[in-house]
């Protein structure tokens, strides 16, 4: 059967092969992409970090560490402001040949600095400072020569300036890399003499976790393939029904007949595993160099988790065998005469799978409810049972669709009823499509649910926060004449235009004219902005919050409803205006209205009404602008914004994390649609290829190519639509269970991506089915007559 029906099985073989390839590449990718701590710790087992404070005490502790541990590696960090950037640049004093820090440093060009007036930069830092090797760097009030370009090969986003090793000074952050046991390091930490916080941390190895997580995803992929393969094997078994009937007629037992299809599945699995593994290893060898940017560190192309590759091979064989098992069992049970007449038995009602599905869904949701978001075993059980239950609803869904078709034109009626009649393969195909769509839908929903958490970073990837002046201190504001402010505003407008018409919202802070400025601010011609203080309940200490003026533009931009309150904030905790007189006995402010958090740490979230501010005698002063583009800013746009900001006398803050949930949403949507359409194309091909007899009858009855097109389009469209419905329902069911404790995040519905999937997949399926199905098979007319 494997040899004679190879062209029918090429689809299953290809799918399984691709799944194994993806699993191999994915496992290798995850294994290598996951951070292993060497970018922070080098080859050391632990790191001791402290602020130098006193130069003498720091030097003494470093010497004590050298004596205690024998071998240590000292890295000194000093943070220098960079014009136009909100983030300072770390100036790192490090021995390029240090005993532990070797994995943290590599030379890309030139040489390492060896003298006090020499420096090496990472490529990104050199680009920001507009300097190349041999040039002079304007850094922290000094002008060293750039002698080389370096990188941290284990953390490519680590931007720093490398200087030659030197003794610590008071402003340094000292990192000492050491070996030995944790207890020994803790013992030494207790003997240190420097003031302040001394931290010890140790590397974590997430490589295996990442690889295993990828393997989990590969298992889901294999399940997807298993569903398609099951549909394929059903078709195959029906094509060979007569031969299998002959086998039974000659005395073969049910087991013999079952073995024919089952062994065919094993062969398909083995072939796919061999082809897929070879393809995966070759693809990884080719791609490993290109994923370094995504991984954020250099990658060794030969580093592959072989044990995971072996498991994925085994999984492929098990998947194919498992997919062949049900059709093998079903075909073996068909009465001999029915098999010889090549007439499959009438489909059975889908009630039993539906009942099992309902039980699984209820059990899954029950597991979630009992887990209380803590019991991992129950959460895993719920996560498995609920989607499997939803997938088992597929036969019922196709059956129901068939029953609802009587009012449709003949093409749609025939397509839907055929799905219902051949629900074994159509149900498996629908389950595969639903799974292909359900996973990305779940990703999109989760990404949207988590889109407004502070953990997402300082700003979204579409936002810019621009401050007046080049200082990094946000509480310092720079007063200036109206003309200068106008010029800055023009610079901001120019920036907005360069970003494709970004929206710009002016931000005003407040100054107290009665307050005497701090000496260092006065020297820089700056004023201290009024701040509101928040008491942290956990630590009973205070921190300052920037207090922006709630102008109409600000209210509109940040979607703040008119509250009538004096102060509007998204922060928690009691708020105070602390003054020297009231510091000892502060009274919390009462006229405070709470609003939802904007989600990002640098987005303004505390505002005061202009009336209340005026009543306090405070004066507004332009502190900056909040800018939001209609698209995620590219690296080039960020660099251009940075350059424009420098020229205009501004400081610009952009998103400080590369990853973005918006990107994840788009990626998941696109990948899900592509995967579902691929699965759809294959399954529709399978289903319609088995309906050649129907095409012959249709042709004889005078059906034109349009009818053939409509038939395939209706098959594809209805499967796609049902897949969207089941996939989305399944995703939401699982997530409702997972978020059972707090369903509020799920109220943020990702309308855009969901609409793209819900409308896009069926529309593309219908269009593609219609376009590709017009040609009449040339041998169609002869096939039955001759």
């Amino acid at each position, binding site marked *: 059967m494997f040899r004679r029906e190879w062209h029918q099985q090429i689809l299953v073989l290809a799918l399984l092969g691709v799944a194994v390839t993806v699993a191999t590449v994915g496992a290798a990718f995850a294994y290598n992409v996951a951070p292993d701590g060497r970018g922070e710790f080098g080859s050391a087992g632990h790191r001791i970090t402290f602020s130098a404070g006193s130069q003498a005490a720091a030097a003494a502790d470093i010497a004590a560490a050298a004596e205690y541990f024998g071998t240590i590696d000292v890295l000194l960090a000093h943070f220098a402001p960079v014009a136009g950037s909100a983030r300072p640049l770390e100036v790192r004093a490090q021995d390029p040949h240090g005993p532990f820090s070797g994995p943290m440093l590599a030379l890309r060009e030139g040489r390492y600095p060896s003298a006090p007036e020499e420096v090496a930069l990472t490529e990104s830092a050199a680009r920001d400072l507009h300097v190349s090797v041999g040039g002079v760097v304007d850094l922290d009030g000094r002008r060293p020569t750039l002698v080389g370009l370096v990188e941290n090969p284990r953390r490519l986003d680590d931007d720093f300036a490398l200087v030659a090793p030197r003794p610590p000074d008071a402003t340094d952050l000292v990192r000492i890399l050491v070996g030995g046991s944790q207890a020994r390091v803790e013992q030494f930490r207790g003997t240190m003499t420097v003031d302040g916080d001394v931290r010890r941390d140790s590397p974590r190895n997430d490589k295996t976790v990442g690889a295993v997580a990828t393997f989990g995803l590969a298992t889901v992929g294999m399940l997807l393939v298993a569903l398609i393969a099951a549909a394929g094997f059903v078709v195959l078994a029906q094509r060979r029904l007569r031969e299998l009937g002959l086998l039974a007629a000659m005395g073969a037992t049910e087991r013999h007949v079952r073995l024919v299809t089952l062994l065919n599945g094993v062969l398909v699995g083995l072939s796919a595993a061999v082809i897929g593994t070879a393809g995966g290893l070759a693809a990884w060898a080719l791609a490993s160099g290109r994923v370094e940017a995504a991984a954020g560190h250099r990658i060794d192309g030969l580093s592959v988790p072989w044990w995971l590759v072996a498991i994925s091979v085994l999984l492929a064989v098990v998947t194919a065998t498992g997919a062949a098992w049900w059709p093998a069992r079903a075909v073996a049970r068909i009465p001999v005469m029915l098999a010889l007449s090549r007439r499959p038995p009438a489909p059975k009602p889908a009630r039993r799978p539906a009942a099992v599905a309902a039980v699984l869904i209820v059990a899954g949701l029950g597991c979630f409810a009992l887990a209380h978001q803590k019991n991992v075993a129950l959460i895993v059980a719920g996560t498995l049972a609920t989607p499997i239950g939803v997938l088992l609803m597929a036969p019922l869904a196709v059956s129901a669709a*068939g029953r609802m078709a009587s009012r449709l034109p*003949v093409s749609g*009626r025939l397509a839907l009823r055929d799905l219902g009649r051949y629900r074994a393969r159509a149900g498996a195909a629908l389950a595969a499509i639903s799974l292909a769509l359900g996973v990305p839908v779940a990703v999109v929903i989760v990404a949207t649910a988590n889109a407004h958490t502070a953990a997402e970073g300082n700003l979204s990837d579409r936002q810019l926060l621009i401050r007046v002046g080049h200082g990094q201190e946000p509480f310092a504001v720079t007063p200036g004449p109206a003309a200068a402010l106008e010029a800055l505003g023009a610079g901001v407008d120019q920036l907005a235009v360069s970003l494709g018409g970004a929206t710009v919202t002016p931000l005003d802070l407040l100054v107290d004219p009665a307050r005497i400025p701090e000496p260092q601010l006065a020297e820089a011609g700056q004023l201290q902005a009024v701040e509101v203080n928040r008491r942290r309940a956990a630590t009973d200490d205070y921190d300052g919050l920037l207090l922006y003026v709630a102008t109409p533009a600000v209210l509109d931009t940040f979607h703040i409803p008119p509250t009538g309150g004096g102060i509007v904030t998204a922060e928690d905790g009691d708020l105070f205006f602390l003054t020297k007189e009231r510091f000892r006995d502060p009274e919390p402010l009462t006229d405070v209205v709470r609003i939802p958090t904007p989600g990002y740490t640098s987005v303004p979230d505390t505002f005061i009404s202009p009336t209340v501010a005026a009543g306090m005698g405070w004066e507004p002063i332009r502190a900056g602008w909040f800018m939001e583009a209609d698209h995620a800013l590219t690296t080039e746009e960020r660099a251009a914004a940075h350059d424009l900001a420098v020229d205009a006398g501004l400081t610009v803050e952009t998103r400080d994390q590369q990853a973005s949930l918006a990107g994840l949403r788009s990626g998941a949507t696109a990948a899900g649609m592509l995967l579902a359409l691929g699965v759809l194309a294959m399954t529709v091909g399978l289903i319609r290829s088995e309906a050649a007899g129907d095409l012959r*009858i*249709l042709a*004889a*009855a*005078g*059906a034109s*190519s349009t009818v053939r097109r409509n038939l395939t389009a209706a098959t594809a469209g209805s499967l796609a639509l049902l897949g969207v419905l089941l996939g989305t329902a399944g995703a939401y069911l699982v997530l409702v269970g997972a978020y059972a404790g707090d369903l509020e995040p799920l109220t943020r519905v990702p309308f855009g991506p969901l609409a793209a999937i819900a409308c896009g997949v069926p529309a593309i399926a219908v269009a593609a089915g219609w376009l590709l199905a017009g040609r009449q098979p040339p041998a169609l007319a002869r096939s039955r007559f001759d």
Partner: protein
Amino acid sequence: MTAALELRAVSKTYGEGPAEVHALRSVSLAVHRGELVAIMGPSGSGKSTLLTIAGTLEEATSGDVVIGGSDVATLSTNDRARMRRRSIGYVFQDFNLLAGLTAVENVTLPLELDGVRLRTARARGLEALAAFDLADKASRYPDELSGGERQRVAIARAVAGERRLLLADEPTGALDSVNGEAVMRLVRAACHRGVAGVIVTHDAQLASWADRVVFIRDGRIVDQTVPPAGPESLLASGSTP
């Protein structure tokens, strides 16, 4: 009188070079309205090929196929499909009905494809089924019908509407003798209403239902029975002293 179906020196060749097969060699045949012609011959003789070409499902390699006065070669693909919907009825040995459609929907299939409203088509389909004593089976799916019933539904579809040409390929091949006779009676009745019929069969007894039997071997018509003399012949002979 214009023939309902006329094949003029039709040849059909499959394959090329050493694999070339001459399925039909210069076959000429005319079938008039109301006439039932049986095609007989051994397996591989070209009977079914003749039927597919007559039914416009395949094109002849050479020669002319004229149906109801229209040369098929001059028609577009869509025109041929329209001709099959309106003028030609097909009955195969088995797999005649679409399993996803009920009996009445199978009968109304050509009408629906031709754009007739669903309600109108259904009424006409029910009429056709009633004529074949199948009105009570109208809502059954093919797998809920017996073999004889399925074939009767297929014939009902083939002659429903204004069909002028009925082509049947072993229509009784999968039936017992009683059902086979019943099917032939229906075919004969359709021809009495003016339909031209062509039946491919191996069964000489069934062929005896035909007005004329054409024997085909190796793609050539090797013999045919003479059509029975019509009433005109009696008039002609009466005028002779």
